[in-house]
């Protein structure tokens, strides 16, 4: 792995670990040095000689089959033609890439590839960005000597809902099959047949239904694999692109966003070494269609006489300001306003909203997590690991939901660490996940009992929980004792209180003091939102309310008096006294104030909060509901004001991923109609509240974050603009030099590795152009302004340590934390515990608004341990009645031997046979218990 802290040199020089083993060879008469064990093709490329190729891909193992990369290599018996993608550089060898013999061989291969190729470039999506086309123009024979009939196959056949295959165009390079088998671990496409009848295909009736199928389209060097959403939609020369970061989940994959006529046409993965290696998941790749949606909200709306009517921003914001003031007044304090959501915002947007809520309104009842995460202090306060560190560790302990469902590209990286590297996986989970087959040990726990399992791992004397096999437990203890341990923590189930998981995490943290942590919270910029203080008890920069009180009071003029409520409590409070539909609790409201106004930032608790009943009661009970949204969801029906907001690809700014890596968002589109970027809405709303945030541009917001938020200290705009920071900068800066990463062999990108990115660049639109665009939009205007833009804030030097102001900064969070852990008291011995897990494709707006993805949302059955199913006398596939204190549903049951007894599982926010799992979950209970009955 590349050491992030030390590699600052540009990619085109000698690779970093040259000192360990360097080889010198002659390349076309020049002396060239390379890393020992490196393939000739890569060494030559770094030395400036591009050897043509088709099958070679820098992120996959070489196979040497296309034979396009043949060069002459000297050997004991004279020079011979060798595939440069399959031959390691050898000390003293002589390599010729430009002899007549090489040319003849390469031309021969190209001619062979073309004889059966349909040459239908004018109707092919790949036309204009096709390596076969390009190399034919560069080296190919002028006219064909092949007069026979070409090979025929039925024209494009769907191999999945998202990918079409045209076998006539295929050149059998095996990039797609290797991706499927090696990278994704889903060998659902393969070569069929032999000789010149060799074709790629799926097994009849079993589509290539992978979350990663789009990558095969991206790396196909011809137009054999095409994406259904992109097909015929554009020509590369009409496209413009900007480099950005995917915010569909919180892995933060780097992408090239390509557009034409102010519509996104395509997203392609960029090979960011520390993050995504060029890969994307299909949700990230195709979800952009929601941005293009016809349904986009384009104007502010206010409810008048029961109906939402279009108004001016001015009027809308006045209504909002009045509503919030009234709520505060009625509740007798700022706690009358609750702010929910924010994980879809940019860092700048999140900061501005945090400043508005906590510094102007004074409410601390602000939460970017929707009851689906973990206590924020724990997440932010644990020593953080990077993805590379997790992949390169000895042991990774995973206590989270199914990573392939929640953070797909992190799954690819971890899987590769296990399959290609020496990483051992210990999985702690109530049910099997996609990682289970790769786990050295996978230990089960009963929902609510994660701590018991963690203790059993931490303390060799502790008893083994009934759900865990003692041999497996012993192995887990052994692996946890390794030198480099990274713990991935997320939310295994939405029907189990996050505090219970956090408690287990703290047990592990205490027992394994050297271990570092990688949060697995899944929402787009949830990490950025938490870092910016969108959580009760927190202030920007991973600072607690009390430690940060003085600093931020000085900067903002005000901070909340006391810790506020999280999403669950906000909703509970808002719905509390109305009774609503069967309210179960009547707790006194904390802060003495009842939440009367809800501001919901880019989220829809109606579909996305674990407990649907609680949301309905809250919406009914609240006096005033503001929704800041880009699409009209179910929430609109309950909102008093709807404010249209700019979406991904329409706003510049930054985002922070699970590692704490801050990377740039590129702006490629102009936001539709009257919609505004998120930060601007907060800033203008402040004005309508009679205050001034002193934030007039994205750039100013960033400068203030850098100045005030301790964890972000030193990450100035000029640092973010350094070429070495293209793939982001990890906060906090741990070394004096910026922790740059390097994009190997991809400056310029290997045009054949990721054809579409490079060819659009060649048309004159380099992906980095997007940053220039962002600059003009104000984010990184002038470096001179970067250091001191003080607007009444504390005097802070630009990252110079030892500075008095810096030492006055509040400390960043550090565990262990006092968290209130609810006690799990089993109802009775007949009850079963519910696991509600996340699926990649669910009813969330990112999927539901995208027709090609919405079709992939699965129907979820209720998974039951087979013995429990037997006890009920129900066969797999039969109906089962599920009863809670307040409701009952009839669901389809299937046997799942991976579940412990008395545990049932189903998926969140996907259709069930009846209702949704949010109808079953009680967010006030530590775990949700159910009764199973025959219907």
């Amino acid at each position: 792995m590349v050491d992030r802290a030390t590699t600052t040199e540009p990619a085109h020089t000698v690779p970093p670990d040259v000192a360990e083993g360097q080889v010198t060879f002659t390349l076309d008469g020049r002396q060239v040095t390379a890393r020992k064990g490196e393939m000739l093709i890569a060494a030559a490329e770094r030395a400036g000689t591009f050897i043509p190729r088709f099958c070679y891909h820098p992120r996959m193992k070489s196979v040497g089959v296309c034979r396009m990369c043949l060069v002459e290599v000297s050997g004991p018996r004279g020079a011979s033609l060798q595939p440069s993608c399959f031959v390691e550089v050898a000390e003293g060898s002589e390599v010729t890439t430009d002899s007549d013999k090489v040319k003849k061989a390469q031309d021969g291969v190209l001619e062979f590839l073309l004889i059966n190729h349909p040459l239908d470039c004018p109707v092919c999506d790949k036309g204009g960005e096709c390596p076969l086309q390009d190399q034919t123009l560069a080296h190919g024979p002028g006219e064909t000597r092949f007069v026979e009939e070409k090979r025929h196959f039925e024209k494009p056949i769907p191999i999945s809902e998202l990918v079409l295959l045209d076998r006539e165009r295929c050149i059998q390079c095996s990039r797609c099959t290797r991706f499927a088998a090696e990278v994704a671990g889903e060998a659902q496409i393969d070569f069929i047949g032999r000789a010149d009848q060799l074709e790629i295909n799926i097994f009849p009736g079993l589509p290539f239904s992978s979350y990663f199928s789009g990558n095969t389209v991206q790396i196909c060097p011809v137009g054999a694999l095409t994406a259904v959403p992109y097909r015929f939609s554009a020509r590369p020369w009409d496209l413009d692109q900007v480099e950005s970061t995917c915010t569909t989940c919180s892995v933060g994959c780097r992408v090239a966003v390509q557009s034409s006529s102010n519509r996104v046409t395509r997203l392609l993965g960029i090979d960011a070494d520390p993050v995504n290696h060029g890969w994307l998941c299909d949700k990230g790749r195709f979800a952009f269609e929601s941005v293009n949606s016809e349904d986009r909200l384009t104007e502010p709306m206010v409810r008048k006489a029961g109906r939402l009517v279009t108004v001016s921003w001015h009027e809308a914001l006045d209504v909002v300001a009045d509503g919030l003031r009234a709520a505060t007044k009625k509740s007798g304090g700022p706690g009358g306003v609750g702010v929910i959501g924010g994980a879809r915002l940019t860092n700048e947007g999140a900061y501005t909203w945090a400043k508005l809520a906590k510094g102007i309104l004074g409410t601390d009842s602000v939460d970017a997590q929707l009851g689906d995460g973990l206590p924020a202090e724990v997440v932010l306060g644990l020593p953080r690991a990077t993805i590379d560190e997790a992949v390169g560790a000895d042991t990774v302990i995973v206590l989270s939901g199914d990573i392939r469902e929640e953070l797909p590209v992190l799954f690819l990286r971890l899987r590769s660490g296990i399959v290609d590297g020496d990483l051992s996986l210990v999985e702690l989970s109530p049910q099997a996940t996609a990682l289970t087959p790769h786990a050295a040990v996978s230990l089960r726990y009963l929902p609510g009992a994660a701590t018991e399992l963690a203790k059993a791992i931490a303390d060799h004397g502790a008893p083994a929980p009934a759900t865990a096999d003692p041999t497996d437990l012993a192995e887990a203890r052994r692996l946890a004792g390794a030198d480099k341990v990274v713990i991935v923590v997320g939310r295994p189930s939405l029907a189990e209180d996050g505090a219970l998981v956090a408690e287990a995490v703290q047990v592990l943290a205490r027992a394994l003091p050297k271990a570092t942590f990688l949060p697995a919270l899944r929402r787009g910029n949830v990490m950025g939102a938490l870092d910016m203080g969108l959580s009760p008890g927190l202030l920007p920069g991973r600072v607690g309310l009390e430690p940060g009180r003085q600093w931020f009071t000085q900067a903002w003029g005000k901070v909340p008096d006391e810790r506020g409520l999280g999403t669950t409590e906000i909703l509970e409070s808002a719905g509390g006294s109305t009774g609503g539909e069967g309210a179960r609790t009547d707790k006194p409201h904390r802060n003495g104030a009842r939440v009367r106004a809800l501001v919901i930032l880019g989220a829809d608790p109606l579909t996305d909060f674990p407990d649907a009943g609680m949301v309905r009661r809250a919406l009914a009970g609240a006096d005033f509901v503001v929704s800041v949204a880009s699409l009209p969801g179910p929430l609109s029906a309950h909102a008093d004001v709807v404010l249209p907001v700019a979406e991904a690809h329409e706003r510049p700014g930054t985002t922070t991923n699970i590692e704490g890596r801050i990377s740039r968002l590129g702006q490629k589109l102009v936001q539709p109609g009257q919609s505004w970027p998120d930060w601007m809405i907060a800033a203008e709303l402040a004005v309508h509240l009679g205050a001034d945030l002193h934030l007039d541009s994205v750039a100013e917001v960033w400068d203030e974050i850098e100045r005030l938020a301790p964890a972000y200290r030193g990450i100035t705009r000029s640092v973010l603009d350094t070429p070495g920071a293209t793939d982001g900068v990890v906060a906090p800066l741990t070394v004096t030099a910026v922790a740059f990463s390097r994009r190997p062999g991809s400056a310029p990108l290997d045009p054949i590795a990721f054809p579409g990115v490079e060819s659009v660049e060649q048309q004159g639109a380099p992906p980095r152009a997007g940053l220039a665009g962002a600059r003009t939009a104000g984010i990184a205007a002038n470096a001179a302004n970067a250091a001191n833009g003080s607007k009444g804030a504390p005097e802070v030097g630009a990252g110079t340590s030892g500075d008095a102001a810096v030492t006055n900064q509040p400390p960043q969070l550090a565990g262990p934390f006092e968290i209130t852990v609810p006690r799990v008291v089993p109802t009775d011995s007949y009850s079963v515990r519910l696991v509600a897990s996340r699926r990649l494709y669910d009813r969330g707006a990112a999927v539901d608004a995208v027709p090609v993805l919405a079709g992939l949302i699965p129907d979820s059955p209720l998974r039951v341990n087979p013995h429990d199913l037997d006890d009920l006398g129900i066969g797999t596939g039969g109906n089962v009645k599920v009863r809670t204190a307040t409701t009952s549903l009839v669901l389809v049951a299937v046997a799942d031997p991976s579940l412990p007894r008395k545990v049932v599982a189903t998926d969140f926010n996907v259709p069930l046979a009846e209702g949704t799992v949010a109808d079953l979950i009680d967010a006030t209970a530590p775990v949700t218990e159910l009764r199973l009955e025959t219907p």
Partner: protein
Amino acid sequence: MSNAAHPTPVDRPRSKGGPAPALTHLGGATATRARELIALYPEPRSALIPLCHLAQEQEGWLSPEIMADIAALLDLTPAEVLGTASFYDMLHTEPVGSHLVSVCTNIACLLNGAMELLEHAESTLGVNAGGTTADGAVTLEEAECLAGCDGAPCVQVNHRYVGAQTAESFDQLIADLRSGARAAEIPTHGTLNRVARTTGLQADRDQIANERAAMAEAQAQRAAAAKDTAANKAGA
């Protein structure tokens, strides 16, 4: 090793295997045989071809359901089973007749009238090479060299050699196949697994590993002794 693709499997889940997979089409004795075959190899996937042969004895071809069963037994995807099986001429992913008649037309047979024999076969059977007669009795196949060139033109039925054929003897052969006259010698759908290993796995792998270590040790000692002797000789 380098980052060149290693030809051995890259994706073998590390955790212990779960319960035996449920098979839908490989039944009873065949399933038992299948598991015995898998046990013969250090890696389950090695049993893929033997399992395909075994499964083909049932119906003569590999239906999708059978391939899915084989995939389950070997912890592969069905696509991998199809991808591999379709590489091999003897593995049929489409139905075949109960007698697969293979006529070699490669060089030695070509020189001895194989093309003419194949044409005769096509016209009397009324199918082109690759086709199956309407009664399902015969699938005719143009084969590559069957290593029976001293009996050219060489013909196999269900991979039993039936000797050099003339047009007349070929017609008789087909008649016999249809009437069942040669059923004992040439059962339908092949005989590849007629004689199975009777001995089970006799050599215990752990024991063998220990013995190998001991043998390597002994070899090293002998080598050292030989060196000493040589040195002594040189010294003398």
